[in-house]
């Protein structure tokens, strides 16, 4: 199995502060990684280093040759001063076949809004348009930075379901920053808990028991995760190996 991205011991400093310290992450084929951590913990910086926005000060990032990445950024609030349709936005800077656009639009449920102006969309529609754009290149890896941040609860549920569907159907890997761990837990096979350094990482239910996780997020979050995981285990009869 080939690793898509392998980052070893990367460190990034900005204005004398260490944003990332000795972080190592491996994204394998058909992995689903969720990065969690408090605000300002360096989550966005980690994603941006992994996809090549920034070079880490030290450490190595190796990528699979010919890796195609679809990126869904954190904030997207197009201004009403720019008149542009969804279709035109999807086609900006690329020549994509009509059939591909139609297929992706169908997949993400934006067929009916293709001719609408971009600034007119609801938050959920906007995120699905961004997701659609990231899929046009048929990527190996989807990188999403808090994609459901500004959605209401049903919007969040819908969006994460869509990501799970794409993850399963396209066999892509997913690397996502998200605070809504309880919503993506079913698919997530690795949680990375980041606070400038990797506090803990592993399967969700193991991370929930980690003392560092509890000290960062509090007992409530850990209990909630554990509770969710418990019922989840019962329904699906997963055989996670608990090493303890």
């Amino acid at each position: 199995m080939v690793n898509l991205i392998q980052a070893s011991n990367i460190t990034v400093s900005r204005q004398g502060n260490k944003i990332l310290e000795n972080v190592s992450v491996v994204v394998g084929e058909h992995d689903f990684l969720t990065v969690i951590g408090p605000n300002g913990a360096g989550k966005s910086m980690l994603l941006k280093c992994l996809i090549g926005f920034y070079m880490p000060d030290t450490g190595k990032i190796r990528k699979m040759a010919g890796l195609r990445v679809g990126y869904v950024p954190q904030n997207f609030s197009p201004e009403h001063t720019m008149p542009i349709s969804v279709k035109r936005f999807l086609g900006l800077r690329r020549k994509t076949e009509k059939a591909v656009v139609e297929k992706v639009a169908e997949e993400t449920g934006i067929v009916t809004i293709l001719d609408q102006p971009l600034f007119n969309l609801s938050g959920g529609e906007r995120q699905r348009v961004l997701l659609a754009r990231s899929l046009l290149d048929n990527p190996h890896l989807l990188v999403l930075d808090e994609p459901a941040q500004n959605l209401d609860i049903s919007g969040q549920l819908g969006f994460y379901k869509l990501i799970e569907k794409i993850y399963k159907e396209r066999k892509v890997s997913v690397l996502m920053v998200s605070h809504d761990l309880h919503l993506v837990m079913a698919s997530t096979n690795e949680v990375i808990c980041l606070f400038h350094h990797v506090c803990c990482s592993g399967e969700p239910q193991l991370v929930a028991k980690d003392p560092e996780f509890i000290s960062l997020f509090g007992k409530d979050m850990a209990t909630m995760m554990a509770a969710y995981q418990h019922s989840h285990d019962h329904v699906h009869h997963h055989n996670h190996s608990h090493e303890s």
Partner: protein
Amino acid sequence: MIMFITIIIAMNLEPFLINAILAGFAVAVITGVMGCFVVWRRMAYFGDSLAHSALLGVALGLAVGIAVNVGIILICSVFALLLLWLQQKKVLATDTLLGILAHSALSLGMVTISVMGQRIDLHSILFGDILTVTRPELWWIYIGGAIVLIMLLMNWSSLVLMTLQEDLAQAEGIRVFLCNLLLMFLMTLVVAVSIRSVGILLISSLLIIPAATARQLARSPEGMAIIASFFGVTSVGLGIYFSFVLDTPSGPTIVASAASLFTLLTIYLQVNKKK
């Protein structure tokens, strides 16, 4: 088009009027396209400040004895870089910085001109005097304008995407920092080529008003640029005509025409919407 031809014939093809029309239309097309980015990226205050600082450029040109346009480009570039550098420091908000830089440069320019004791037509620098544009100045406008338009068109999709979402643009390999620098530099060119027509105080209105008028009709970014240029050209045509007939200063007359078009269209659209 027919209207403009009639104007030219009516004015007996006076050479200074032909120069004025050739200059004005070119400036209108350039500011129409650039103006879209000014409106999209909220650069209105930046453009205004840049234009104010151009007075120091005029003073420099006169003092050192280089072409005034070169002085303007030099000073405006320094202004833009200084602003970028101060923004990085994150001590003061951008509008505060712009206010400090713009008015310092304007005052410094004014003081320099006074100290030199040069007799220059300040009125024409502040409000423009399109009816006295000369052939060499026309060349400036066309070459500078061509650079602006070509650079904008070559990078059009990248600039539009960057305006919508910078991170997305960067993820797709666009060098966002360079594009920002490019836009700043193109703005200095636009200021340099437009000063003769509308003057330092009114350049930003020629950037904003046609684009804002076009926004109400356009359905695509390109459409907005084309319609903005059309409104700009119409405003300049009307402005030159009335400036000639009523003997009013050209810059304010052009801007008043643009403002009238904007007002009429806005009222028309509002009335028709309610029906």
